[in-house]
């Protein structure tokens, strides 16, 4: 079961993320909150987050080679990028997404 959370109108050039989490696990709850915060701050109105609960769709996670939770996959824009962890280290997330880090904004 997947849950689409549209936050702002997905337009051309939108950021699409897929977040694999274990519902209820503290690091997963943190990851979701952190991802929301980053998206709102950096791509307001042009992002989409798809949330997949690995406890509900375990075979999908296995088939998609997702072994740790939380895992965020940036689907679009290409190339695909995988980030694991609760995203508490924001600088690392931003550099992985190819964005300038906080000090420079």
């Amino acid at each position, binding site marked *: 079961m997947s849950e689409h959370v549209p936050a702002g109108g997905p337009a051309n050039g939108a950021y699409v993320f897929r977040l694999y989490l274990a519902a209820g696990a503290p690091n997963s709850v943190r990851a979701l909150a952190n991802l929301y915060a980053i998206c709102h701050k950096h791509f307001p109105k042009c992002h989409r987050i798809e949330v997949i609960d690995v406890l509900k769709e*375990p075979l999908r996670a*296995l088939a998609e080679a997702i*072994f740790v939770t939380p895992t965020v996959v940036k689907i679009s824009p290409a190339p695909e990028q*995988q*980030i*694991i*962890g609760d995203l508490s280290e924001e600088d*690392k997330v931003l550099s992985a997404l190819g964005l300038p880090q906080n000090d420079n904004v």
Partner: protein
Amino acid sequence: MSDRKREAALKKIASGIEGFDDITMGGLPEGRTTLLMGGPGCGKTVLALQILVNGATNLGTPGIFVAFEENASRVSANGETFGWNMRELEQKGLFFVDACIRPGVVRAGAFDLTALLAGLEAKTKALGAKTIVFDAIDVLLSLLGDSMLECRELYRIHEWLARHELTGIFTTKVEDNEPATAQRYGFMPFMADCAVLLSQRLADRVTVRTIRVLKYRGSPHALNEVPFVIGAAGVEVGSSNGVHPEPQPFTERISTGIERLDEMVGGGIYRGTNVLLTGSSGAGKSMLAGQFIEAACRRRERALFISFDENSRDIARDLATVGIDLAPHLASGSLRMEAIRSEAASSEEHFMRVKRLIAEHGPRCVAIDPLSALARVGGGLAARAVAERLIYVCRNAGITVLFTSLLEGLDPQLETTTLHVSTIADSWIQISYALLDGERNRALSIIKSRGSKHSTQLRELLFDDTGISLADPYTAGGEVLMGTLRMERETAVRAETRRPLLVAAEEEEQSK
């Protein structure tokens, strides 16, 4: 409750690998965790996969193979090279999970292995899997990058396995003599219920693989390191417990091919026993071995001649010079000659090869020339164990085997063989050189012959183009005479005895 727990602790699943079930005394602990440790290229992955394949094939227990380091499809393809029908198995109950960590993954904060375990749990239920292999668990742990996390996540897997009563097999790299790695994953052997160490080292430039059970909770196990090989059909462990000499009724006597030698050992050697033939270089050991094999062929028995470091054709040619013609037997297929290079492999690999040759050809008589070649690589201890097992394998199959051994050393009087196999030899024939008056003659004697009386005399061994023979013992003045000295003495004695004979004849005539 505790009693029931103890009972459960003793339940084992057979690995189906020859020798491995011996050293673990029955196989891996069921519903527990086993750790296979070793350096790179030690055969951890092959062993783990083989246990899984055997479980699915022989015991009908489905299993899951999680590959953290090697590509899962490559692991499966490697399995095919050992003759395991991976494609069929993958449909019936062997599932591969490709868990190679992608290089581009960025770490940003805390995470755990919930996704993997949730996925495996669903797959386990769907398949009814009983065994799970985590291949290269160290690669997964290194992703965590923190020893506290490593420990925590490993315990999480361990607990998950225990909760679902799954048999877990972890493989992990351990560098020999490197305390840093050993310490880093030091908690692993403590956690596991059974820990097995695989290692490989070079002995005389040849790789020798060994395996040892470090611990086995709730079960006895072999304490010693035993050799193993990765052969054409996968891992084979050379456990010394694997081959036991079974008591055999030895009643039938067969010929060595040399009539007088048969007489010396009381009418031939017992079928199913072994004969050790020792002698220094050039003594004629191969000739006697060839004669033994030819005699077997003449009795219409299948025979196998294994020579180390000598071309089969050369041996056949040398044998032809003393009138032993093996060509018709080779042509008919009843005789097989096989030449093996001793330096090309460890003694354990030689053992596997010889065993396979015996299984393929099904001989009643085997000659191994020389068995001492086994000791050329990897040292005496391993070679000795191999020699013993080889002898026991033949004995249990009722095969009569003649093996030669080179006697080297400063003191030939000591008469010990490099492998010290003389103690397990049933008969021991020694060819030595008798140096007398500027001649070197071959002398054959029997040192031991179990279960029969044997001659204690030293006989001269003669080779000529009509064959191999033993001269009658000829003693004079308390010495055995051979060669020219014997001829001289014989002529002299004949001349001496002729005179009294002539006198006697004259007297007879006179009385008439």
